[in-house]
């Protein structure tokens, strides 16, 4: 991997992302679970990380020189489970347990529950501080690997994120990259989007002012995602990945209710059709 991006590579990644989206849909439907929109919006980011950018070995998930992903948006765990299974960290069969009684697959990510899960997240705004600590430890150990933190945009409302941004810049953590899945919606059951609830814009200027190298990209374009994720800097980096909530299923796209709703059977079948190869 990590070779020059050809059209064939991009087609492969798009194919993989579609598989991941189908798995997300399947496990959420089967489990009568939720958080479909924010898992689908992150699907291309997760695909880029696990199928191109990150240095990982599914057969040795604890290897010391692996890149780490802190899944700060732990509620999008179905996306993470789908990506890890697709990448071969564990059999797809395992995903059938999702939503059953006594499963170790919670609906928020739990460290070590399945191979490849690095941290436990589900309460917003924790991931970046964990990422700062991990990045510091790796740098101290002269372990030349990278730490990615995948955050929702809603959780940027937590003050702890901004403490961690101060810290990342203070310690000049060039091995740390924050990816913001900027789908512009959070729970928002009143129909309000993230910026109506607690405005984040101008977000890029805020990150820049905090001393992080900031890049805004289309979070559904591998041509933009992969170079942005591969890029190194002397400073910590933020990638604002503009995404569409529930991307890939047109009738759900950009509609806030798909944060918390589970599709019924008709909707599920229609969505699967949209995601057919």
């Amino acid at each position, binding site marked *: 991997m990590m070779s020059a991006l050809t059209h064939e590579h991009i087609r492969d990644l798009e194919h993989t992302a579609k598989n991941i989206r189908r798995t997300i849909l399947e496990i959420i439907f089967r489990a009568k679970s939720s958080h479909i929109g924010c898992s689908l919006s992150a699907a291309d980011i997760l695909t880029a990380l696990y199928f191109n950018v990150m240095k990982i070995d599914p057969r040795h998930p604890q290897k010391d020189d692996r890149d780490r992903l802190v899944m700060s948006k732990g509620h999008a765990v179905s996306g993470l489970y789908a990506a890890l299974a697709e990448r071969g960290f564990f059999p797809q069969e395992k995903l059938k347990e999702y939503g059953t009684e006594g499963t170790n697959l919670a609906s928020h990510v739990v*460290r070590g529950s399945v191979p490849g899960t*690095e*941290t*436990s997240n*589900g*309460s917003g*705004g*924790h991931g*970046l*501080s*964990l*990422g*700062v*600590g*991990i*990045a*510091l*430890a*790796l*740098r*101290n*150990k002269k372990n030349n690997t990278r730490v990615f933190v995948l955050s929702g945009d809603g959780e940027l409302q937590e*003050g*702890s994120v901004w*403490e*961690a941004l*101060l*810290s990342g810049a203070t310690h000049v953590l060039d091995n740390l990259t924050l990816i913001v899945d900027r789908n512009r919606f959070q729970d928002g059951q009143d129909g309000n989007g993230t910026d109506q609830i607690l405005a984040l814009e101008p977000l890029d200027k805020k990150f820049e002012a905090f001393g992080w190298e900031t890049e805004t990209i289309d979070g559904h374009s591998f041509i933009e995602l992969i170079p942005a994720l591969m890029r190194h800097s002397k400073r910590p980096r933020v990638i604002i990945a503009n995404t569409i909530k529930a991307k890939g299923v047109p009738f759900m796209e950009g509609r806030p209710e798909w944060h918390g709703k589970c599709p019924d059977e008709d909707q599920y079948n229609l969505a699967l059709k949209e995601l057919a190869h």
Partner: protein
Amino acid sequence: MRFESINTLYEAALRDERIVFITGDFGHPRTEDFKKNLGGRYMNAGMSEQHIIGMAAGLALEGMKVFVYSIVPFITLRCFEQIKVDVCYHNTDVTIIGAGGGFAYGAAGGTHYAIEDIAALRALPRMKVIVPSSPWETRMLMPQIIAAGGPTYLRIGRGKEIDFGENEAPTLGRSQVLRKGSDATIFFAGPIGKEALDAAEILKQCDLDVEVISMHTIKPIDRDAIALRAGNRRAIFTLEEHSVLGGLGSAVAEILAELPEHPVFLRFGVQDTWPVLFGSQTYLRNAMGISAMHVAEKIKKVLL
């Protein structure tokens, strides 16, 4: 106690390269040594306690032994959910050293008091809660605390504590008898123990023979020591510089209440109230009814 805990930690950090020390901009006696000799393993992370706990957990996930340090309210309740999730849920080797237990910052007012921290942290699964009573006890326990690893909450004083009741070396997880006695037992935690010993001395004048026990380890609590006294004392008391809700008094009550029978039991601590007048730690102990005199008077009423 600040000196003893930090000094022991510094000596251990020289030998153990996993040890990281993070202060939330709170001073300590070995600052220059840490800065000079520990490099990146010493950090002043400023007033960012939520971040400090998360960062500490992140460091620990990569194999470091992390000690974070600040004044109790800021490094416990301010960042309580980070302690719950990042430290306890992840089961990370993080030890929280909180300085200024109880009313150690007497004149500073309620923002700086620590009278609910034990209740809060005791409720977290996996968290150990250690409250040494004196510089000596801190020095004795500190190597055991470092070896046991986190999640741990170590509540110390402000730095003006005195030694009392030196005895055989204390063991983490086991209570420590500081004064023998057969009529009644006072279980205490923290520097307030001096008041318990003074109370026992006052009671001796009334021919009451009161045992005084340091419960430096509040969690996991020394259940056997409590059960033993429940069978052979006329009364059991607890004394702490903390709310009577959820601290040592509650921990002892939980054990006693589940025994088939137990003697008279009374908790000395801060009632469910805020001090409205301010002064020294001694002033506040008096005002809150947890000084030796108050304790002795109430025990007399129970026993005589």
